[in-house]
């Protein structure tokens, strides 16, 4: 970004080392915990509605020792992973078909642009009717939400194929299948990974939503049960856990993205840029 070596120093000051940055970050987190501890203790907010941080973390620790929580966690992540996988495969296939069939891209544009912004939560009543409080509901919502994220990126990706590369492949008489494998797929891969990253976080949100609202088994249901049974500290603890899993999901997909793209020789440039 910055042009010359001199440009950074004015603003950077003493914040140049990684250690200092981490120290500030830790201080920020400590500050949040202290605030969460002090606000209820000082009676600014009633402890019944916002327990002190120590109690929240204590409740979370207690929950983590129960088998039920781990089962719920497994169900949430299972639904998330399965839904994401279905959406991913379906979207990649759909994207390739749309690219291969002449005219389909132009013909499907209006339909995609209409269906894409439909909030997947609109399907909650349908999910409830069709599947009730089960994995099926989770899957319906997760797949619908994640599908569009991947599809749009796949379509950008296959449209981005360099015409010169494609012409070269044609002039050497590569078959259609071979062109897809050697030209289209490597070009589209970075886009597809971006789609996967976006879809992964949306899928996690929808998995939790289905559990929370429809009542499919999982972490969301546990939160809802904790709330309705008045286990306030437990509820907060589970919300914290949901945040931590959200971070883990993001990190995991980022690591995967970097690995897939770094391994692929033809897209190394993209990773670097």
């Amino acid at each position, binding site marked *: 970004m910055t*042009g*010359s*070596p*001199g*440009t*950074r*120093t*004015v603003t*950077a000051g*003493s914040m*140049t080392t990684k250690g200092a940055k981490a120290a500030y970050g830790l201080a920020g987190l400590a500050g949040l915990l202290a605030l969460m501890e002090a606000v209820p203790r000082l009676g600014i907010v009633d402890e019944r509605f916002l327990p002190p941080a120590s109690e929240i973390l204590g409740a979370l620790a207690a929950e983590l020792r129960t088998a039920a929580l781990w089962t719920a966690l497994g169900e949430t992540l299972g639904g998330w992973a399965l839904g994401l996988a279905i959406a991913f495969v379906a979207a990649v296939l759909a994207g390739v078909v749309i690219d291969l069939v002449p005219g389909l891209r132009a013909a499907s544009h209006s339909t995609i642009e209409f269906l894409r912004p439909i909030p997947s939560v609109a399907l909650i009543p349908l999910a409830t009717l069709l599947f009730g409080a089960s994995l099926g509901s989770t899957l319906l919502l997760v797949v619908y939400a994640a599908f569009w994220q991947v599809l749009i990126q796949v379509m950008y990706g296959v449209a981005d194929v360099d015409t010169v590369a494609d012409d070269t492949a044609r002039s050497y008489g590569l078959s259609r299948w071979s062109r897809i494998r050697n030209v289209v797929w490597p070009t589209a891969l970075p886009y597809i990974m971006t789609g996967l990253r976006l879809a992964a976080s949306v899928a996690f949100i929808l998995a939790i939503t289905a559990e929370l609202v429809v009542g499919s088994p999982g972490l969301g249901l546990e939160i809802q049960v904790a709330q309705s049974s008045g286990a306030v500290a437990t509820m907060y603890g589970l919300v914290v856990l949901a945040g931590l899993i959200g971070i883990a999901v993001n990190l995991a997909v980022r690591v995967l993205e970097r690995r897939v793209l770094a391994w692929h020789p033809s897209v190394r440039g993209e990773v670097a840029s």
Partner: protein
Amino acid sequence: MLEVTGLKKVYESTGREAVGDLSFQLDAGELACVVGPSGCGKTTLLRCVAGLLAPTAGTIRVAGVPVTGPPDNMAVVFQEYGRSLFPWMTVQQNVELPLKEKKLPKVRRAELVAESLAAVGLADVPRSYPWQLSGGMQQRVAIARALAYEPEVLLMDEPFAAVDAQTRGELEDLVLRIWQRLGTTTLFITHDIDEAIYLGQRVIVLSSSPTVVLEDVKVDLPPERDQLATRALPRFTELRGHVYAQIQRAKDTR
């Protein structure tokens, strides 16, 4: 008008000494060029003079006043024209913004904008956006903005490094014409020896970093410059050879 005394800059983060004991001065109305080997701290020098970077030691005075932040009577034309113009403002708005900050009345602002755009030959595009213009035209807008500001000292940081050779010649003549008309004290930083000799009354040759002044060359060419005639003068070639040798020496002694 511009005095740089014992300027020294060490970057805290890396401990690198970019500029070591550097001194020179410019009289009012002078046009001096600064050349040096690449990576010699030219930009650091400019940022210190402009008040954008605090020096480690030494002082800079503009019209006798020590520089502690960007002075009011100074304007800068940066190398990166594409990044120093606001892409969301038209040419006219770009030139006018600093004048608004100076709290000039509207009529005066309109006058200054029109005059300075005319001076750089862009009277016909005030409502265009910078990105609709070519690189050379964008740099003209940046020059017009500096002129409209009516500075006593004008700093130019390799302003033509990123434009093509033909445009470059035109812009050099533009700078000369404007300087001859307004007599603004100008410090012109460049890495191009020909450009420095062609434009300057003086050429300040810098060493490689930590930078000091190697030599202050007086350019004893006739004041009327011309791209073909001036560059063909034997004296021009001599001066160029001299400065070139100095810079080569600076590189070798690194």
